Every structure is written in C-alpha cells, then in structure tokens.
C-alpha cells in the first residue's frame, strides 16, 4: 500500500481500486481542538476539488476538498460522536472516508511522504 498526500493536507492509502482518505497530523494540529465533523453519505459521488465535508475546530470551520474523483464507500461514523479523535489519530483510526477511485491516474498528481514533508516545511 502506498500513501499519497494532497496540498490540502489529506492522505490517501490505496489498496486496489479502493482507498482510505483522512487528514494529516499537520492539518489536525493546525485546526486545533476539533469539535464537529459533517460528512457525505455512502454512495455519494464527487469530483476532484469538490467540498466533501466540514471539520470544525474551536477556532473555525474548514472544508474537506476531494483530492480526486470518486465515490463514498463508507464514511467513518465514529467521528460524529468523537470528533476529537481527529486530533489524536488523524492518520490512523480517525480516517474519514473509504472511497472507490474513479480515475486512478489522478494519484500521480499527489505527493509522496517526502514531498509532503517538504511541502509543509
């Protein structure tokens, strides 16, 4: 499994034609204490750049943008009751979506860990 990173501070691990998407620890740290998460439903389709969810911290509301085209296979429902888990394990148990990729070529537009580490400086 390879992990890809977007400039919007999301990570994606790909396993065949399904992938898991979340936000990076860096994003979670920048947002601060996360208190509310609003997600798309199973079966919702989206295109690269679409707003596919909202994460609110004590500070502000932030959109989650789709890093590529796809369809929601599963939204992590534990986040609604425990939004703070996104601060604690954003790259583990607090993943956001399982998605079906519509266009795997779009993965090439994303960064690997080394590039992302560089990106966040």
């Amino acid at each position, binding site marked *: 499994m390879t992990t890809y990173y977007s400039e919007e501070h999301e990570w994606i691990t790909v396993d065949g034609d399904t992938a898991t998407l979340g936000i990076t620890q860096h994003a979670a740290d920048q947002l*601060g204490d996360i208190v509310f998460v609003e997600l798309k439903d199973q079966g919702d389709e989206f295109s690269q750049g679409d707003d596919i969810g909202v994460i609110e911290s004590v500070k502000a509301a932030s959109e989650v943008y789709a890093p590529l085209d796809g369809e929601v296979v599963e939204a992590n429902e534990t986040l609604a009751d425990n939004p703070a888990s996104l601060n604690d394990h954003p790259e583990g148990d607090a993943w956001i979506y399982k998605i079906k990729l519509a266009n795997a070529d779009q993965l090439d537009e994303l960064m690997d860990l080394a590039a992302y580490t560089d990106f966040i400086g």
Partner: protein
Amino acid sequence: MTQASRRTPLYDLHVELGGKMVDFAGWEMPVHYPLGIMGEHQHCRNKAALFDVSHMGQVLLHGDAAAAQMETLCPQDFTTLPQGKARYALFTNDTGGILDDLIVSNAGDHLYVVVNAALRDQDLPLMRAALTDVTVTELTDYALLALQGPAAESILAPLCPAAADLTFMQTIQADILGSPCRISRLGYTGEDGYEISIPNDNATTLARALLAQDNCAPAGLGARDSLRIEAGLCLYGNDISQTTTPVEAGLSWAIQKRRRTNGGFPGAEIIQNQLQNGAPRKLVGLKPAGRAPARAGVEIQSAQGAKIGEVTSGGFGPTIGGPVAMGYVSAAQAAPGTDITLIIRGKPQPATVVALPFVPQNYKR
C-alpha cells in the same frame, strides 16, 4: 492590513511561550498557546488564566467636569459613581445605536477609562470634542493584563495583598513588584478576576511572576472569545454596533435610573422609548440541539420558516461541551424556550432560545 501591526510590551513573552500570533485590530496578538483554546478555556474556568489585553485603549480624564460631561456621551451615571468603583458604559449615537462599550472607573482625582482597541481612534476624538476643560490622555506607557479564574485572588494576593479585599467592580491603585499599578476586580470571562494596568517596563516581569504559579496558564484571544460567549458578554462589532440599541442588546441594566428618567445622552428619545415600550428585536442566547457550531452570520428562522434574525457570535462552548451562540431575534420569538431554526451551510438545524449567560457568572460580590 492597512497599517503596520503594533506589538504590546508582552510580545516577546508571547513568542517565547509558543503563542500563535495573529493580527487583531491592528495588533499582533496570541490567538492561543500550545495548550490550545479548549485547554486554555478550561484552565480559566477551573483555575486561572492570564490574558494580555494591552491592545485596549486606556485613557485618563482629568478635570472636575469629566464625570458630568461623559454623561453627554453615555447613558450611564458617572457623577454619583463612588470613588474606587468601575462601571460598564456605552457611547451611544443619535439613533440610539452603540459607538463602543467601555469601562469607566472613578479613580479619585480622575476617571480611568478602557475602550476597545479598534475604536480608540474614534473614541479619543469623541471625548476630546465633548469634554471641555478636561484633559484626555491616552495611557500609552501602560500595559493591561487580565488575570481571570477562581484562583485569581490566591495568585495575585501574595504580590498585592490589597487585591484580596476588592469585590466585583472595585478598583484601587497599589504597587505590584515596586511599580504603581491600577488593579480592578472585573473581566470578560464570567469568572472572578482582575485587570491590572502596569507600566510597560514592568509588564513582562509581572506576567512571569503570575505565570510562575501552578494555577496560572497563559491564554489567548481564542479562549477569551469562547469564555465571553459562554458568559453572555457582548463583543463590539459582533453583538453590538452602531445599529443596535442598548435595549435590543439586553444592556438596559447598564442604564441607571436617573439617566433613564432624565435622558440627556445621544439617542435618548429612542432608547427611553424602548426602555418603556420594549424593542422590536432582542439579543438572546441560542442553544443548537445538534453538535454543529452556529457562527456569526448564520440565519435564524422561526419554527414556521420566516427569517427572524442572525447569529452575531457563536462557536463551541468548552464548558457547555457543545455549540453556543448569541443572536438577534424579533421580540415575539425572544422568550427562553422558543424553538427556532438555524440555517447552517444551507441546512436547517433545530435550536432553542435560552437565557444568558450559558455558564453562571462567578463574580466576587
């Protein structure tokens, strides 16, 4: 930014403590420290927190006529304000709107006034024009620290024994660490606490001495905002403005009896009429039923779907453990218990009108 950011005397300390600095009203201020907004908020409610509020405007009014002439700008009673007492006040305009909110203290031979940071350039000329034979001096060589929380007295008293004897809205001059300070028992969090005006040169030393105590943590503007919303306290520019009257804003309590009867302040006719007959809309507390925070600008609808107002302040209340908001609704919908609907990102979310504050005020009376 149209002008270069200004820094308070505590700037270097904020950076040293890991403060995340942001522009606020033209000042570089910490929005939070490594503890985070939630932790800083809880620290203030449970123990004590130290805020730098040096960006606010501190003004001295010298002259026998100061109290009487300030009454031509504000619907408050200053001429009978006892020495050593502070009072919440408002500058009003001719349409009964609010130009700023401020604290006026009777310091014996002068009035000590604290105004909002963003409005000093409005307020100073306003006072200079209206106050004749009164010297209006901005106190630029003094910092202002707010020590807030139930442990505030036990933290400050070892450095300033007289502080322990003050009750809510009392103010004294006293030395702290050898420098002349003004200590006032008030704040903007709903908790017991103090605001300490101290010469710039000694501000960092005092801040370090207070923070050296276990119960005291630094807190930034983020926690200051969530604390004041839970306490039901208005923020100028959000909850009160030139187009909201004191009566609409639920600030009738701040207008003393003689002023209600006699008037003699800008907008008196409109404000007196509203005091008598009620205002068409009211600032109320709003408790969303779900978890989604309702922030400023969110539309408020009646249960029947008619627009009745807008959220003016809102977010997550750490002590409440859920979203809290304030906003204006039409008077008919303003009773606590009224079901309303908030339109958050286009989706209707149920909420209820509640009495303010969300968290009981914990002042030392």
